[in-house]
């Protein structure tokens, strides 16, 4: 969406922005709040706040997605504090009452969400290679046997999956911690 202000000004515009970003905002809120109802409430509140502040959005300063995530971040923190829900960010945010602590908790949730989103962007071959080897911890040989491909192919898929993950994470605004 190139120009969100007029887009958010109409029902069709809101619908389009929701189609582009609503589900990922929801997944982020879901990961943070751990509750479907609250996550949906967070998305609704995010769109209301975005609509109210549409005049202040400057697409030269950042993407619409980044702007929406800045809003949903605040919504999630507000909801966490208001309702003291668990788990995810809320457990830390509500008990700490400390801005730095909240930021750290938020960063962890944000990275987790970015990884999930980035994995969705991979090809099926790359994603399954990474999931089998890294998340399921299966030996390369087992995966190669299961897929009926040479072990070198599995290694190559994992390598390219990591490369693609890096690009996708950067696109999602990932901050490397090294």
């Amino acid at each position: 969406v190139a120009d969100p202000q007029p887009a958010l000004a109409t029902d069709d515009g809101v619908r389009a922005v929701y189609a582009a970003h609503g589900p990922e905002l929801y997944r982020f809120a879901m990961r943070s709040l751990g509750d479907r109802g609250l996550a949906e409430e967070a998305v609704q509140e995010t769109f209301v706040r975005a609509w109210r502040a549409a005049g202040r959005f400057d697409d030269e300063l950042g993407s619409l997605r980044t702007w929406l995530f800045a809003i949903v971040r605040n919504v999630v923190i507000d909801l966490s504090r208001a309702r003291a829900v668990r788990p995810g960010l809320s457990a830390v945010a509500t008990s700490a009452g400390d801005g730095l602590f909240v930021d750290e908790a938020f960063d962890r949730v944000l990275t987790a969400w970015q990884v999930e989103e980035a994995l969705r962007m991979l090809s099926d071959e790359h994603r399954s290679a990474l999931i089998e080897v890294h998340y399921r911890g299966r030996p390369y040989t087992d995966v190669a046997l299961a897929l009926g491909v040479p072990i070198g192919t599995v290694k190559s898929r994992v390598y390219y999956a990591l490369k693609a993950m890096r690009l996708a994470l950067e696109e999602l605004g990932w901050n490397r911690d090294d």
Partner: protein
Amino acid sequence: VTTEACRDWRGPLGAAALGRADPAEEIGLRAHLDGCAACRAELRDLTAVARALDSVSATDIISPPSEPSGALAGRVLERVARERGAQSARRNRRVMAGVSAFVAAAAVVIAVVLVVGGGAGPAPGTRVVLEGVGGARASTVLRAGPVGTHVDMKVAGLEPGQYYWLWLTGASGHRIPAGTFGGRRQSTDLQLTAALPLAKARRIWVTDDKDRVVLDARIPSTE
């Protein structure tokens, strides 16, 4: 610089980033990395990605992704529409409040005009003409008010740049100030009030800044 040899080490590089390097391959990979800055940089990049992967548990990745209900889009639209309506209503209320304030102010002005200059005419007053010195002249209408005597005065022939006092004197001989004003040669209308009941006022007079009398008149008894 990526070379043909670098391409051969890509698989082991990915495995090393995940901490899953084959021991047999690792010795050769280390030897290659010692002489290849590009592959060392790439290993750093991929290792950072591998660390990020650990922010999500295997259970979260393997379990079906959570998706919003199909009704969420409709609820978002509804909330935004409601907010738009509420904002519009707030704006209308502000406009109406402004209009109401304007109407109220206009009503006050109209009421004042009606009281002062309406068909009933001014409240009954005592007209007093003051005798002046040095070309000063004034005529007044005195009216009894709740806090004293209101003085409507038309005055002319005073020295510009000077200031003057208007006084009323009561039956006891005490002078009561009705206020000060600047001098003008042309005719000027003033409204002043002295904290002395009209019924007790015996004299109306004006002094300059040196307390010299420039305008003076006796007030006929209204009792």
